[in-house]
C-alpha cells in the first residue's frame, strides 16, 4: 500500500468504525393515550383503548418509560398537562394517540375525551406542536392512529408521493413512480421551504381520509401493524439491530397496503414526516 493510499485508508476506516458504533440508549419517555369510551354512546370506538394498552406494553418491554391515559384520563387537560410535565426532560419523547380524529377549520385534530361534540376542545396539529415546543422538547416522535392524522405530518423540505386521500377507490394512487416525475414538485418544495418543527410524525392515514379498526385484528389496523412490526422484530428492515421511525413507517405502510387495502374499498395509507432525521426507537434482540 503506497504512501498516498495508506492515510486515505486510515481515514475511511475511522469513518466506517464511527459509523458502526451505537451510543448507549438515551432516556426514552412515552405518553400513550387511548380513547374508546367517549361521552354518551354514539361515538364510542371498539379497540382504541386496547391499542393504547398494547402499545404501552410494547414500549415498556423495549425500554421506554411510559405514562398512559385511557378514556376519562385522556381529556385535553390530561394530554396538555402530561406534555407540560415533560419540560426539561432529556432524550427522546414519544407521543401516541388512538381515538377519534377530525378537522377544525380544515386543520387535522385529535379528539380527547370529553370533547366529542365540541370542536373547540379538539387538539389541532399546530396546537400539539406548540405544546411540545413550549415544553422545550426537540427530540419528539408522534404516532397517531386516528382519522385525518396525516394533517399532523409535515412534509418539510420534501414532497410526499402519497396523496392526502389514497387508493384506487379514491383515484389517489402514488403520485410519483420515478424520480423524474417528482423533480418539478421537489424543486418547488425546495424553493418554498420555510422550516418545520423538526418532529417526526407517523400517521395512520392521510389528511383527508379515515383510519379503521378491525375485528379480525382486535386493534386499529395501523396500530396492529405497528405492534406486529415491533413484536416480531420485522420492522428492523435492514437488520442492523435497531428499529427506526422510517423502518416502522415502511413496515406499517406495506402491511396496510397488503392486508387491508387489497381487500377493502376503505383503502388508506400512513404518512411519515419529511424531516432529515430519523430515530432509533428500540434495539432488536
Amino acid at each position, binding site marked *: 500500500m503506497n504512501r498516498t493510499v495508506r492515510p486515505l485508508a486510515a481515514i475511511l476506516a475511522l469513518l466506517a468504525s464511527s*459509523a458502526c458504533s451505537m451510543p448507549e440508549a438515551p432516556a426514552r419517555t412515552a405518553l400513550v393515550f387511548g380513547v374508546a369510551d367517549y361521552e354518551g354512546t354514539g361515538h364510542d370506538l371498539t379497540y382504541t383503548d386496547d391499542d393504547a394498552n398494547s402499545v404501552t406494553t410494547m414500549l415498556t418491554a423495549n425500554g421506554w418509560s411510559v405514562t398512559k391515559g385511557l378514556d376519562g384520563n385522556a381529556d385535553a387537560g390530561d394530554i396538555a398537562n402530561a406534555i407540560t410535565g415533560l419540560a426539561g426532560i432529556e432524550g427522546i419523547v414519544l407521543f401516541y394517540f388512538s381515538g377519534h380524529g377530525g378537522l377544525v377549520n380544515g386543520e387535522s385534530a385529535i379528539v380527547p375525551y370529553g370533547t366529542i361534540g365540541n370542536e373547540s376542545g379538539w387538539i389541532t396539529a399546530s396546537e400539539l406542536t406548540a405544546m411540545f415546543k413550549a415544553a422545550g422538547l426537540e427530540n419528539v416522535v408522534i404516532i397517531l392512529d386516528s382519522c385525518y392524522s396525516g394533517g399532523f405530518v409535515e412534509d418539510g423540505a420534501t414532497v410526499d408521493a402519497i396523496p392526502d386521500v389514497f387508493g384506487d377507490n379514491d383515484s389517489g394512487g402514488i403520485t410519483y413512480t420515478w424520480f423524474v416525475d417528482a423533480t*418539478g414538485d421537489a*424543486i418547488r418544495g425546495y424553493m418554498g421551504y420555510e422550516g418545520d418543527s423538526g418532529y417526526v410524525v407517523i400517521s395512520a392515514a392521510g389528511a383527508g381520509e379515515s383510519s379503521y379498526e378491525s375485528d379480525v385484528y382486535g386493534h386499529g389496523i395501523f396500530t396492529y401493524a405497528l405492534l406486529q412490526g415491533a413484536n416480531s422484530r420485522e420492522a428492523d428492515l435492514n437488520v442492523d439491530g435497531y428499529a427506526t421511525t*422510517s423502518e416502522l413507517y415502511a413496515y406499517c405502510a406495506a402491511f396496510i397496503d397488503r392486508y387491508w387495502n387489497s381487500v377493502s374499498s376503505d383503502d388508506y395509507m400512513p404518512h411519515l414526516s419529511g424531516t432529515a432525521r430519523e*430515530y432509533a426507537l428500540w434495539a432488536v434482540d
Partner: protein
Amino acid sequence: MNITVLTLASLLYIAFSGLTVTPSLTASAGAGVTDQRGFDSAVGAAGSFDLEFRLGDDGGALVRYGLSHQAATAYTDDWYRYRGFTGLTMGAGYYHGFGPIEAYALGGGQVAKYENSYSYFWFPFLELGGSVPVAVLGDRIGVKAGVAIPVYFRADAVTAGAKATVSFTFLPSSRSRK
C-alpha cells in the same frame, strides 16, 4: 421544469457542439458529514456512478449525469441519525488540466428519495475535484484516480463529503496510444 427536455437538450449540445467530446464513467466512494441547524452532525458513507462528457482538449465544459447514494449516518447520542437517500444528479461545470492533474468545478442539482419512505426532495450541489491518469487499458480506455469534494445545499441540512474516484475514459482515436 422538464428535466427530460433539459437532459435531451444537453445531450444534443454535446453531440453537435463540434468540440472534442470525451466520455467517461466514474465510480466514487467516500463519506459525508450532515448537519442540521440545532442538531448534532453525523457522518455516513456515500457513493456514486456517473456518466460524464468533457468538451474540448485539456480544458472546457463538462456535463455529468449520475446516480448517487448517501447512506444513513451514524447515530448521535440522542439516537437520531440523518436518513439515507438515493438520487439522480445532473450537473455542468468546467475542467482544466494542470500538467498531469485535471481539476474541475461542477454545479448542479439532485432529485432524491429518502429510504423507507415516499418522500422526494431536491437540492443544488457544488463539487470540486481532480484526478491524475494512472493507467491505460488497451488503446482506448484511460484510467484516472482522484478525489472529489461535494457539498449538498439541502433545504433543511447541509452535507459535505470527500470521495475517492476512479474514472474510465474513452479516449478519442487521436489521443489513444499508438
